[in-house]
């Protein structure tokens, strides 16, 4: 069926990413003494969560045709903020969570404003705002620290049964619960974010407009779409997702840390993840689900260093080469294209 071939061709990037992930992660689990167990899954998902969020955040502005170099900074800022707000009564903590998410969204919204109303290029605009957000983070946490409710931290970084135990919910025996008790909370959260945030957004008119703007701005305008609103929405959502990442980072490390290099690393890795996940940096095609896989690929690469005996001082080189190879996979296109003009983007 032609449509099927089309669908596959359209998601070629994503397909490749999934295969890569299955390869790296499969090998890792095969050779891991406790491979394919909940313990390993919990650890892996915990480790990947923040990067996954950063990658999904990066995806939205990229789809609209612009990079967001402040993703890591927003994440770090929210992380530092959260390290003050995630303690005390359940109500207080809930409030804290909401404040953190709002802060992330606000930061993203400000990015959007600078881009839309300031008419600055997203790359430079977010390069600058990113520095500002890092400044705020450093102001919030000149040195690492903070207190996060221990139960919360423990419960959210384990599987569902631990979650239930910790808060004494439906004393874990219930049959249906047993079926899903092994699910790691972070994995569940990733899935929820995709199902409750990304997919719905993509199906709204605004989300559709994000794609349209990235694909062809003039066409979007001619069709009477609300371009500015879409851009604002894209950056706001990016901030929101980065915020979730920062929030989880705080829960996971039960502290806030305004680590500038770490922020930079997350931003750059998020871009790599987006590309590996099959989203075009030119905008218009791809999706956050792909970036999720892309992020997992990046993580899965380094997982393997813990299994195989790669000399420690060779690891960085190895990592670099694999990354370079992974992002170069898309290059196959070059040899298929029959009209050289199409290579000129």
């Amino acid at each position, binding site marked *: 069926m032609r449509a099927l071939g089309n669908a596959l061709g359209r998601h070629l990037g994503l397909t490749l990413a999934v295969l890569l992930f299955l390869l790296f992660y499969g090998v890792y689990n095969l050779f891991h003494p406790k491979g394919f167990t909940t313990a390993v899954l919990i650890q892996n998902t915990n480790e990947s969560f923040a990067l996954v969020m950063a990658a999904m955040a990066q995806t939205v502005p990229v789809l609209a045709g612009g990079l967001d170099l402040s993703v890591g900074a927003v994440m770090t800022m929210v992380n530092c903020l959260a390290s003050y707000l995630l303690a005390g009564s359940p109500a207080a903590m809930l409030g804290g969570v909401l404040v953190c998410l709002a802060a992330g969204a606000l930061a993203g919204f400000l990015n959007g404003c600078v881009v839309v109303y300031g008419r600055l290029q997203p790359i430079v605009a977010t390069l600058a705002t990113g520095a500002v957000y890092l400044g705020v983070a450093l102001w919030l946490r000149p040195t690492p620290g903070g207190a996060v409710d221990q139960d919360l931290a423990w419960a959210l970084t384990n599987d569902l049964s631990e979650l239930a135990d910790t808060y004494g919910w439906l004393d874990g025996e219930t049959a249906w619960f047993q079926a899903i008790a092994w699910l790691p909370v972070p994995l569940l959260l990733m899935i929820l974010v995709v199902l409750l945030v990304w997919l719905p957004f993509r199906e709204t008119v605004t989300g559709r407009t994000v794609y349209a703007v990235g694909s062809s701005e003039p066409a979007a305008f001619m069709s009477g779409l609300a371009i500015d609103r879409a851009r604002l929405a894209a950056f706001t959502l990016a901030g929101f997702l980065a915020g979730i990442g920062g929030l989880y980072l705080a829960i996971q490390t*039960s*502290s806030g840390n305004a*680590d500038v290099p770490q922020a930079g690393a997350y931003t750059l890795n998020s871009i790599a993840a987006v590309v590996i996940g099959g989203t075009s940096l030119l905008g218009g095609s791809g999706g956050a689900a792909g970036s999720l896989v892309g992020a997992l690929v990046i993580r899965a690469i380094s997982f393997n260093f813990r299994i195989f005996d790669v000399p420690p*001082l060779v690891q960085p080189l190895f990592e670099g080469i694999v990354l370079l190879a992974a992002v170069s996979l898309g290059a196959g296109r070059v040899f298929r294209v029959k009209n050289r003009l199409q290579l000129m983007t």
Partner: protein
Amino acid sequence: VLGLSTVLAALPAAAKPKVVQGPGYLPACFKPWSEQTKFFQWEAKPGPYRIALVNGFVGNTWRIQMIQTAKAFAEQPGIKDKIKEFKVISTGTDAAAQLGAIEDFINQGFDAIVTIAVSPEGFDRVIRLADRNDVVIVPFDNVLDTDAVMQVNEDQLEMGRMSARFLLKELGDKKSGKILEVRGLPGNSVDRDRHLGFREVMGKEAPGFEIVEIVGNWDDGTAQKATADALAVHNHFDAVFTQGGSTGTVRAFLDAGHPMVPMAGEAENGFRKLIAQYKDKGLKGFSYGQSPGLAAISMKAAIAALEGNKMPQLVSVPIPYADYTTLEDGKNYWSNLSDNFFTPNEFPPCDVNITAVEIMGKTSENVK
């Protein structure tokens, strides 16, 4: 905390190390931090052991030297036969990745994990898991703000204090003037502690001095630029306390033609070379050092703990230092070798006898 206890209630009895009375094992090597320091004791485990070293950032000489030392130590007779498997990985400056790696090694059933923390916070989860699985975690160098694990470090506060005392000694009866303080990486606990120690003594014993602070990031280039700027504006300093990137600071003084003054700094070979070279011109230098050998000591501590010995919760490794009077080429610095490596590496009381030269001086063979 309160929450913690409720969780632990929910857990299968976590096998925390017993808190016991001293004295500890091999006190010459594992010196308790203070009188208050408590002692830990784990169930003795039969060896040989599987040990992992989880490093963070790798892109600087100190870390590379540290990794080399650890690997050499693992091969050392008397240690080699106690180690079944020794794995080293670097996670980069990413807390999530480092915590993940540690947890992964716990899952893999390693017996001990020595690590340089990316952040002094956030290890609660892995510590808890380690306790549940009888795994000994030993943070060193960048240690944690907790007393729930055994840690190995030199006293960063003391480094600041020593430096202050040395400078005051050299300044003699001069009780006022300007002192330049070149700080390290902002937000890092080591930077914080060395700074506090320095200020503590200066504040107490010589409040008359104006202290000018600049940020050097422990990076020679950055320190050199920042120092040059400070010199151009302040024209004269009576003494300098610098935290790494020390050679950069001296270079800036040379470039500016500023007379050499008493200077306390890190233990880079380059800095000691310069002291030796300019001590007669007034570079009364003091060089304290964070030794990459800490890795080896931490490994030894981990093994000792696994063997069921009593271990201090916080092991204080004496600060190796030298000053312009005690420098000796080929002994505590090497004029024919690279500036970048860190001179103090061995620590005989722990029979960590791998010298910096053996590590950083040897050429090509084993690129591991």
